[in-house]
C-alpha cells in the first residue's frame, strides 16, 4: 500500500483543489457547538476533524429525506420523474469507525436488490477517513475488533502525526486516482508506521463471548432492565452509521406529488404496527432487543458482518442515558 507525507500547510491546498476541480466536498462543519457533515464551498469552513461528529456521515449517501420519484400531472397524463443522478464528490474527515459503517451500508444497499440512488452516490464518492488521535469515553471500536486507524471503507486514510505532518495512505484505486493530481505537494513515506499516533480506546467487553452467547439470550431477563429507560426517540438510530431503515411517505402538492424516503427506526412503536392494530413488537423491551440483535446477530446471519462500528454515538446522543456497552457486557456475561 502506498503512503505519502503531506505537510500541515499543504492540506488546505489539497482540499481546495478538490473543490476547484468541481467535485462536491463533504466535511464536518460546526453548527451550534456540534459538528455535522455537510457540503463545504471553502476549506476554511471545515471544523476540527479530530472531534467526533454528532451524527454519522450516512446522510451523504442516505439523506434524511429524499425524493424517490416525483409525479407530475394527473390521471393517464401522470408523468413519473426520477431524481437526477448524483455528482462526483469527496467525503473528508470521516472517522475510521464511520467509514467502516459506510462500507456496511454500501454492502447492504448495493449487493442485493441494489438501490439505484444510494449505489450511485457510493459510486461517485471518494472517502477520505481521518484516523483518531484521541478517543472519547464512549468510543469502543477496539471492543468490536476494529481500531482507530482502520481503513475499511476508506479510499484514502489520513493520520495526523503532529509536528511530522500528515500520513496519507492509499487504500483503493479510486483513492490513488484522486491523489494523482496532488503528488507534487506530497513526499513518499513508505517506512512510516502510523500506529504510535493512534488513540487506544479501552476494550470494554469481550466480543467473542458476545458472539458465543448471542443465540441464547433472546429470552434473557436483562432486556427489561436494559430498556426500561428507553423513550423510543430513535436518537440512537438516527445517529448510527449502520442503521439503514426507512419509511416511504407521499407528499401532495397541487401540480406535483413526491414519494419520499425518510429515516425511520425500529425503536418507534409505529414501525411494526399492522393495519389491524396488532403490533408484533408491542413493548420497548422487544424493540431494543431487536435493535441490538440486528447489530450483533441478524446482520451476521444475513451479511456475515456485525452492524455496529463502536462509534458510541448512540450513547452520546441518548437523552435517557442508555448505554449499548452495558448491554454488551450483560450479553458477554450471560
Amino acid at each position: 500500500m502506498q503512503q505519502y507525507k503531506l505537510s500541515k500547510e499543504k492540506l488546505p491546498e489539497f482540499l481546495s483543489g478538490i473543490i476547484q476541480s468541481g467535485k462536491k466536498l463533504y466535511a464536518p462543519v460546526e453548527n451550534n457547538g456540534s459538528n455535522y457533515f455537510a457540503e463545504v464551498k471553502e476549506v476554511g469552513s471545515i471544523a476540527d476533524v479530530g472531534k467526533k461528529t454528532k451524527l454519522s456521515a450516512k446522510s451523504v449517501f442516505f439523506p434524511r429525506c429524499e425524493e424517490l420519484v416525483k409525479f407530475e400531472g394527473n390521471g393517464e397524463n401522470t408523468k413519473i420523474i426520477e431524481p437526477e443522478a448524483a455528482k462526483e464528490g469527496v467525503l473528508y474527515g470521516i472517522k475510521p469507525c464511520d467509514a467502516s459503517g459506510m462500507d456496511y451500508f454500501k454492502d447492504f444497499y448495493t449487493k442485493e436488490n441494489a438501490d439505484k440512488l444510494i449505489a450511485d452516490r457510493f459510486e461517485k464518492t471518494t472517502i477520505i477517513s481521518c484516523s483518531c488521535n484521541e478517543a472519547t469515553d464512549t468510543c469502543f471500536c477496539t471492543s468490536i475488533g476494529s481500531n482507530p486507524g482502520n481503513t475499511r471503507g476508506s479510499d484514502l486514510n489520513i493520520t495526523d502525526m503532529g509536528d511530522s505532518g500528515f500520513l496519507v495512505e492509499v487504500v483503493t484505486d479510486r483513492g490513488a486516482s484522486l491523489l494523482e493530481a496532488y503528488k507534487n505537494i506530497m513526499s513518499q513515506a513508505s517506512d512510516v508506521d502510523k500506529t504510535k499516533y493512534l488513540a487506544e480506546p479501552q476494550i470494554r467487553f469481550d466480543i467473542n463471548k458476545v458472539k458465543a452467547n448471542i443465540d441464547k439470550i433472546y429470552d434473557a431477563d436483562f432486556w427489561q432492565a436494559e430498556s426500561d429507560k428507553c423513550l423510543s426517540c430513535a436518537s440512537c438510530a438516527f445517529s448510527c452509521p449502520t442503521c439503514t431503515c426507512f419509511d416511504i411517505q407521499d407528499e401532495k402538492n397541487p401540480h406535483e406529488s413526491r414519494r419520499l424516503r425518510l429515516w425511520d427506526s425500529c425503536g418507534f412503536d409505529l414501525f411494526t404496527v399492522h393495519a389491524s392494530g396488532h403490533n408484533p413488537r408491542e413493548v420497548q423491551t422487544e424493540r431494543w432487543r431487536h435493535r441490538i440483535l440486528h447489530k450483533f446477530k441478524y446482520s451476521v446471519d444475513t451479511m456475515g458482518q456485525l452492524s455496529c462500528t463502536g462509534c458510541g454515538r448512540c450513547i452520546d446522543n441518548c437523552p435517557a442515558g442508555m448505554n449499548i456497552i452495558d448491554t454488551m457486557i450483560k450479553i458477554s456475561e450471560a
Partner: protein
Amino acid sequence: MENMYVPYMMRIEKITDEAPDIRTFRLKFMNSDDEKKFKFKAGQFGEYSVFGEGESTFCIASSPTREGYIECTFREVGRVTSALASREEGDIIGFRGPYGNTFPIDEWKGKNLIFIAGGIALPPLRCVIWNALDLRENFKDVSIVYGARTENDLVYKDELKEWEERPDVNLTVTVDPGGETPDWKGKVGFVPAIVEEIAPKAENTIAIVCGPPIMIKYTMPVLEKLGFPVENIYTTLENRMKCGIGKCGHCMVGSNYVCKDGPVYRYDELLALPMEY
C-alpha cells in the same frame, strides 16, 4: 440499474364491493410492454399506490393462470387505502411488484389441499385456490374452510357460491357466533373449532392457513392434533412493509425479511422464527 421505486401505471378495470369497507380492484397495465414482461406466482404481493397519498402492501389476489390483469382486495383503514377506495373504474393507480416468495404449488402435485382462511385473509389464499383449481387435475381433494365475523363480512360472495356448486371442491363457510342471519345455511363457530369438527384427513394433505394471528394461533394446534406434520402446513405472513425488497426493515422477524424471505412460510420455518409477526 433501475430505480426500484418507480411504479407501473395501472388502470382500474373493474371494482367489486365485497363487504363493508372491502373492495376488489381488477388492474390492467397501461403499458403493454410492462404487461408482457410481468410474471408472478401464487403467494406474491405488491405495493399499490395513489400518487401523492402513498403506497400500501397487499397480496396479488388473482391467480397467475388468469393472464392480462391482476387483482387486489383491500380494507379501507388508513390514508392510502381511503385514497384507493375513492378511485373509480378507469382511474390510474401505481403498482410495484411482484415481491416475495411463492407457494410451492408444483411440489403439491398428487396431494389433497385444504385451505383455511379467516376474514380478510381469504384474498392471499384466493390466488393459490384459483391457481390450483385451474390445474385441478394435478391435485386430489380440494377443501376450503373460510370464516368471517358475520355473513356480511364474507368476501368473494359470488366465488363462494361457485365453489359451493363445484363437485370437485369441498367448501365450508362459517361465521362467528352471533354473526349469522336466520337464513344462514353455513356453519356457526370460530375457524379452529370448525376445522376440528370437519377433521380433514392429514394423510397426503397440504394445509394452507391464513388469518389473523389469533386464528393462526388456535388453528395450528388443531392441525397438529389431526396429524398434520409441520412440514405440510403453510401460511403467509402480513407484517407491515414499506419497500417490499428487503431494505426498509419494517417487516423484519429475526434475520428474516418477510417481504423477501417470505411472505410464504412452512410451519416449521415459522416456528424457527421469533414470535414477532
